[in-house]
């Protein structure tokens, strides 16, 4: 029964995505603008890195291409996140305007419903630039796992997008308590910029944040180190594990917030 329900949830999720993509692509100009802005936003950091590394090819043992690889691995899940889970950005607005009700009136999981509330094709831009960066880097960096790198990367990118979505969900759920602080998700998103660079550059306090509560390290930094320097392949499995844990916690936060919403109305 539970398995069958889950299967149905997935079919439903897929249908919603398809319809939303079709609706979104009807607005060509908007879509083009969004993709360009995604490319520019992500490209800025890539350009920054390339400009700096033109003069200083090795930083803290990280050469240019290894850094580009890390950048790609951190950027691709951002794109996937936009493609699958972008509706989370609407949560603070839904709470403020009291429109969360329409989510609760449906016989499906509200979190899943929220994820697809709005998805955007401009994620293709981020995803593309991430994949491009990784494939460029792959020609210069020795990858230790040969062809196995590919499935490992898929695991990391998918887990990464779940991690990003969960962190977004948790920070947006703060809106249940602090309605006016609706820019907290933007703050959390800024931290994804930090995660695109080797964590070794940062002081330990900052690095610790990327293990908890923003466990980006498991999906970006650690896998990059593993794939380029070698090590136990089990390290990759910490990516989905971290994704699962943070997702559970984010859902818990959402549920607590929802309980508050349900007793207070608006």
């Amino acid at each position: 029964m539970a398995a069958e329900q889950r299967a149905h949830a997935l079919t439903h999720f897929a249908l919603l995505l398809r319809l939303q993509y079709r609706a979104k692509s009807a607005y060509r100009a908007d879509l083009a603008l969004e993709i360009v802005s995604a490319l520019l936003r992500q490209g800025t950091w890539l350009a920054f890195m390339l400009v700096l590394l033109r003069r200083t090819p090795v930083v803290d043992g990280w050469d240019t291409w290894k850094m580009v690889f890390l950048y790609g691995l951190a950027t691709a899940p951002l794109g996937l996140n936009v493609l699958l889970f972008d509706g989370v950005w609407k949560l603070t607005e839904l709470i403020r305007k009291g429109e969360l009700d329409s989510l609760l009136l449906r016989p499906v999981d509200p979190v899943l419903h929220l994820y697809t509330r709005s998805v955007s094709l401009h994620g293709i831009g981020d995803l593309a630039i991430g994949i491009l960066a990784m494939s460029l880097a792959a020609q210069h960096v020795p990858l230790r796992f040969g062809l196995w790198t590919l499935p490992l990367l898929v695991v990391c990118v998918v887990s990464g997008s779940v991690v990003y979505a969960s962190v977004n969900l948790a920070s947006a759920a703060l809106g249940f308590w602090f309605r006016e602080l609706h820019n907290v998700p933007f703050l959390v998103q800024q931290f994804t910029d930090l995660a695109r660079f080797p964590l070794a550059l940062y002081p330990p306090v900052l690095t610790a944040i990327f293990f908890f509560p923003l466990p980006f390290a498991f999906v970006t930094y650690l896998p990059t180190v593993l794939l380029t320097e070698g090590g136990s392949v089990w390290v990759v499995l910490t990516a989905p594990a971290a994704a699962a844990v943070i997702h559970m916690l984010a859902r818990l936060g959402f549920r607590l917030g929802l309980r508050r919403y349900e007793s207070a109305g608006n």
Partner: protein
Amino acid sequence: MYRGRYVVGVLISLVQITVLYYIWRAIMSGGQRHAGYDWPQMQTYLLLSFLLTLVLSFGTEERVSASIRDGSVSLELLKPVHYMTLRVTELIAALFVELLSVGLCLALFVSTVLPAVPPETGSRFLLVLSFLLAVALKATIAITTGVLCFWTTNVLGLIACRQALALMLSGAMFPLQMLPDWLHTVAYALPFQSFFNTPTMIYFGRVGTADAAGLVALQGAWLIALAGMTALLLNRGFRRLDSYGG
């Protein structure tokens, strides 16, 4: 609660500058100079970048565009104040708050964390003028982008585009001299370098008084051009709004 939101806004800029700071630190750890800047100078450079990002933050800009987007424009049109005056007053008020907090940040930073390098400029007057013009330019372009709401529903995308370009081509991330030549030329042809590059170049004494005056004049020219364009767009936009019947 607006204050709480502002604090979060400052934190957002802080995170961004943190990335830049630590990467620059790693790169300059060998005691090298980049584009003629040593580490203490670079720290000051980044501090200036941070402070100018704070003046007129994303939040302010978003409010400008939101007020247009939500059709509050048509409401405000009924008020007997010229739209531009209204916007400018609002922006100046926001600026005042932000300048005040920036001043506090500055005092805090300089006295504790970062020993800032004092300006090496020949002309203090030009330095102050170029900073003021930089702020005025940022305010103007915020309004310009906001006004584009009359034509597109997706102004946040536009803002993001512009900010990405501005971040890279204004010199906020790295001195423009580090760009490849062709991009360097492009950067100087665009208004973004007037936002940040001009005042910092003067601050660090990288240009002689004559060149500095030229750059400041360029800032002034951009300001006039952008303000003129905004006025034109506003005019058109209102007519468009009228024809919709508000």
